[in-house]
């Protein structure tokens, strides 16, 4: 019914409202199924907030109602018009978010850079803070190498008695606890570690924080006998650490600036010992009051990469919770996931910050082609899917190796000879065509697996993209087109001839792929799966794909078509989506109004629910379907998170019980429950859940009401926790 569709787009919500009224009237007359029925006004607002944000905050429904849903949606489609200064202030201390990859590599040096400095291939930085960091990191690297040698030697010649040697210390510590990330070489082979260890290395700080959970208000139960005890690892002799501790007592009394300067003036060894003594959550004592840059420098002494990864993941969570530009955040998450890059693959760790900021975010509501081209030229993607080392089998590089094609040499009488290049027998020569990226572009980024391409097309596209490479990936270099690696000759894709044109061939192909009808359908379906349901109606997909093609892949327009479609507002779409772990954690934080001063414990929970941020290894990205996220272990994590958050026991957060009640003072338990239910779930609590919770309202243990102090206001945090862990809250 094209006419009515156009009318819908034009008249918009007015018509929809009348459609609702019509449906409501209709309902009395005869039963209709949920797919045809539409939502009422307030449900529409709740639905829109559930789909276009990371969760509803208390008061959001009222705000949108007074503003008008239409206007709100329009505003969200133009994030640049929304003031987001509160979030920006929160993110200001995370300096890496604004750095280029090169700056990050320099400020938070990986071992390759440290080795280059050690070997004199790179200069030691002149800035005193950076210099101090480099010196201590080089020392840590050397110690680590020495320790490995010692271990080998000790194993060859076992000591007769149990000495306090570094190796022994290490062995007596459970291995998952000895993951002192600063002590491990961070370069060569992350893969040598189990995924858990890998995670641990990245997230050591959070783990420590988690171990510290509840150490404030409630006492942490001591682990049962035989459990791995959280012994802080000390790879250096104990005396050194004790010395560092003694010295730090006076340090902690100094004003921040003086404290920072004293640390910078220490010997590299002292500084490293100090950092080890204050590793994990204790580092906050050491850096208290310092400027962000100083804090980062001190934290990097223990593990530079942790600063980079920590700030990135923390920022993602904070944005989801606090940004006013919610649709932009949702779309950034969506497109990052669509063009997924795994943080754990070598130098990608340093590239992802810039990838999300400069490649994904600027285009999330723009033209699809711009997004595709930007990702294709991003070092993060080129490294992740190996295209940077793909070499055309007949390219100059493949035939002659790294040797220059013409060597100019002065002859014995001053004449110039041009030596013909010799095919190189070097076994380290780049090995050839790598199809990974070409395949994923078609299968995952554009056409979809059934989008109508063949293996031949993949191979030809791989040839087209040879030479799309990176300038020094380990040092944070950018995109570089290397013509010497490019496969010569014409290529044939979808039966079309792509004539030889170097880098231009790739641009031509990306344009074809971005405008392919299969791409329009594939992207539309995926958007509908994110915003409507796991199995979206074909009619909706077709309509969205139609807009995609007519409007040159304009994502904003595709979204507009989606939410002006009746399928979007169909009653059976209401709370039809199960939240992903990120959506769940962010929505709980938003619903509870919690104050997050350290987001890493929340990030850690998202990881444990099976969705490590930036940590999806295969290029498919995370699934958006319910079945992926609903399993026993993850469900337990969700309930535990909800309880910890609600009762204020989640590290890194403060939850004022009054905030849960939206500043109001309910007269009785029933009033309080009503407030909590409307604040957290917009009132969408089932009768069963309500009945279960109602029973708990009078349990003094739950509300922490004290019989000897009846005047004290009950704490409804545990009740909030129960609501957030309920089946209803798992959906959006």
């Amino acid at each position: 019914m094209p006419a009515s569709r156009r009318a819908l787009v034009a008249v918009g919500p007015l018509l929809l409202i009348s459609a609702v009224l019509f449906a409501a009237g209709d309902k009395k007359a005869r039963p209709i199924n949920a797919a045809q029925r539409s939502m009422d006004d307030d449900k529409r607002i709740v639905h829109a907030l559930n789909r276009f944000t990371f969760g509803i905050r208390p008061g959001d429904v009222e705000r949108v109602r007074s503003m008008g849903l239409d206007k709100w949606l329009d505003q969200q489609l133009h994030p640049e018009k929304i003031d987001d200064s509160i979030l920006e202030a929160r993110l200001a201390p995370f300096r890496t978010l604004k750095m280029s990859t090169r700056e990050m590599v320099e400020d938070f040096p990986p071992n390759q850079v440290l080795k280059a400095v050690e070997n004199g291939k790179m200069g030691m930085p002149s800035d005193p803070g950076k210099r101090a960091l480099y010196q201590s990191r080089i020392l840590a690297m050397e110690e680590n190498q020495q320790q490995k040698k010692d271990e080998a030697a000790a194993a060859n010649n076992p000591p007769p008695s149990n000495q306090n040697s570094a190796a022994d210390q290490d062995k007596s510590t459970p291995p998952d606890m000895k993951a002192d990330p600063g002590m491990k070489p961070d370069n060569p082979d992350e893969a040598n570690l189990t995924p858990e260890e890998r995670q641990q290395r990245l997230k050591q700080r959070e783990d420590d924080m988690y171990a510290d959970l509840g150490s404030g208000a409630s006492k942490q139960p001591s682990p049962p006998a035989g459990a791995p005890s959280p012994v802080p690892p000390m790879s250096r002799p104990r005396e050194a650490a004790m010395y560092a501790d003694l010295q730090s007592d006076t340090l902690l009394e100094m004003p921040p600036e003086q404290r920072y300067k004293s640390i910078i003036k220490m010997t590299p060894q002292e500084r490293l010992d100090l950092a080890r003594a204050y590793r994990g959550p204790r580092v906050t004592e050491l850096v208290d009051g310092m400027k962000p840059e100083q804090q980062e420098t001190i934290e990097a002494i223990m593990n530079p990469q942790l600063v980079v990864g920590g700030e990135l993941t923390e920022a993602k969570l904070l944005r989801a919770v606090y940004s006013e530009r919610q649709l932009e955040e949702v779309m950034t998450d969506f497109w990052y996931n669509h063009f997924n890059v795994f943080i754990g693959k070598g130098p990608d760790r340093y590239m992802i910050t810039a990838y999300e900021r400069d490649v994904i975010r600027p285009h999330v509501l723009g033209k699809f082609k711009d997004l595709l081209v930007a990702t294709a030229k991003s070092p993060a993607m080129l490294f992740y899917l190996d295209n940077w080392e793909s070499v055309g089998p007949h390219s100059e590089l493949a035939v002659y190796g790294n040797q220059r094609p013409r060597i100019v040499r002065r002859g014995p009488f001053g004449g110039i000879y041009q030596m013909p290049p010799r095919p190189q027998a070097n076994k380290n020569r780049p090995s050839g065509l790598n199809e990974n990226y070409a395949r994923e572009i078609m299968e995952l980024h554009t056409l979809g697996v059934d989008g109508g391409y063949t293996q031949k097309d993949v191979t030809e596209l791989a040839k087209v993209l040879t030479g799309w490479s990176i300038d020094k990936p380990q040092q944070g270099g950018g995109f570089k087109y290397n013509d010497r690696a490019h496969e010569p000759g014409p290529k044939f894709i979808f039966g079309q001839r792509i004539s030889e044109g170097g880098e231009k061939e790739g641009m031509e192909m990306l344009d074809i792929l971005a405008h392919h009808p299969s791409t329009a359908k594939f992207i539309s379906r995926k958007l509908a799966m994110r915003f409507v349901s796991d199995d979206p109606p074909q009619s909706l997909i077709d309509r969205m794909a139609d807009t995609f093609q007519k409007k040159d892949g304009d994502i904003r327009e595709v979204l507009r078509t989606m939410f002006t479609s009746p399928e979007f507002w169909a009653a059976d779409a209401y709370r039809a989506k199960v939240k992903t772990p990120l959506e769940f954690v962010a929505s709980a934080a938003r619903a509870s109004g919690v104050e997050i001063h350290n987001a890493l414990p929340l990030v850690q929970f998202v990881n444990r629910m099976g969705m490590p941020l930036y940590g999806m290894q295969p290029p498919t990205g995370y699934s958006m379907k319910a079945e992926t996220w609903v399993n026993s272990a993850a469900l337990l994590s969700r309930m535990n998170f909800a309880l910890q958050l609600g009762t204020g026991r989640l590290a890194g957060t403060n939850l004022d019980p009054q905030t849960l009640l939206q500043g109001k003072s309910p007269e009785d338990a029933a009033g309080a429950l009503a407030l909590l239910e409307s604040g957290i779930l917009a009132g969408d609590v089932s009768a069963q859940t309500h009945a279960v919770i109602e029973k708990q309202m009078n349990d003094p243990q739950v509300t922490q009401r004290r019989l000897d102090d009846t005047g004290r206001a009950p704490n409804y945090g545990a009740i909030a926790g129960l609501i957030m862990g309920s089946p209803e809250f798992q959906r959006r």
Partner: protein
Amino acid sequence: MAITRRVFLKSGALAVIGTNVIPSFLTRAVYGAETQAGGSGKRLVVLFQRGAADGLNIVVPHAEQAYYAMRPSIAIPRPRNGGDSVIDLDGFFGLHPSMTAFKPLWDQGHLAIVHAAGSPDTTRSHFDAQDYMESGTPGVKSTEDGWLNRAVASMKEAQPSPFRAVAMGGALPRTLAGSVPAVAMSDIRGFAVGGRGPGAATASNSFEAMYEQSVDTVLHGTGNETFEAVKMLKSADPEKYTPAAGANYPRGRFGDSLRQVAQLIKANLGVEVAFADIGGWDHHVNEGSVQGQIANLTREFSQAIAALWTDLGDLGENTVIVTMSEFGRTARENGNRGTDHGHANVMFVLGGPVKGGKVYGRWPGLEQDRLYEGRDLAITTDFRQVLGEAVYGHLGSKNLESVFPGFDKADPRYFLKYLG
């Protein structure tokens, strides 16, 4: 709608006995024992050595002259009396001397070895090679699920259980990703609601009631399973677990993992497949020989597996344990007394139905012209042939094509026939 069916089955069984009177974990135990007898009760434990273990120094071809020529400082000396040399197995191959724990298993005929096995993909990247081995689809990056999950999915459910597929560790490994619900846990004591605080029971009961009564079919089903699982674990009383006599798990994460695998299996929770891993095998520098890094790690590795075997006792009869690593290491040692990324490797297969005491597979040799790309042990057995036999012959899944899609040897005639 497997979930609802499962819950229905359970509820049915419980209703007969009377839900309100007898705790459901007790009825589960009764019910479980029945299905146990009727069902297959077969289990597969999969162990991954991450970082590319040096198979040539783990199961040493001590009769190969070339082995000693290529590894002047890290070769393990030929078998001789007085130790510090290869533990001979069959006159050609032998175990690293720190793997004494494996020798009795070999002698008893439980332990088999497959040498020169691996993934045919040519990558020497840990990242890609592990990915391929876990997805079970070498060369195909976009496979979303893991082979072990597909293996479970391809089988009839012997016993309704949330613990059909378990992994030890904080995150679910790629091997177990997929449509069958799989549980990952680093510590089975943490598998509960609300921790051990005073309000924990109240909170747990409240959630249980909510999910039990929920009309949301997906969450209702999984919620019920979850609380059932929590109770099952609690009834297994993991805090009081003592391994069987003689099962001495080494200290460390790997030993802890395998001890908990044994706990889960012995608690009769319906475990069909389990996964654990051990890292640290990437020995580019100072690999060591009779002593050193490789010795320490192989000791931990073999002791933990032997402890698991002892701990399982009679249950070992229905258990197969298989090990793998993403690729092998160069046949020659490098300039740092270590080895670099190579190709073929060794796999261990241990279990009741295994015809052990034998090295399976064709040995390609270590002469220069026999080496893959002139540097690595060549692959003569695809790792999927080994895993496929365990899945088909032991677990009883007949649909190998779905477990290893695109594998042209997904057929019993390519099995090594290491199962009795």
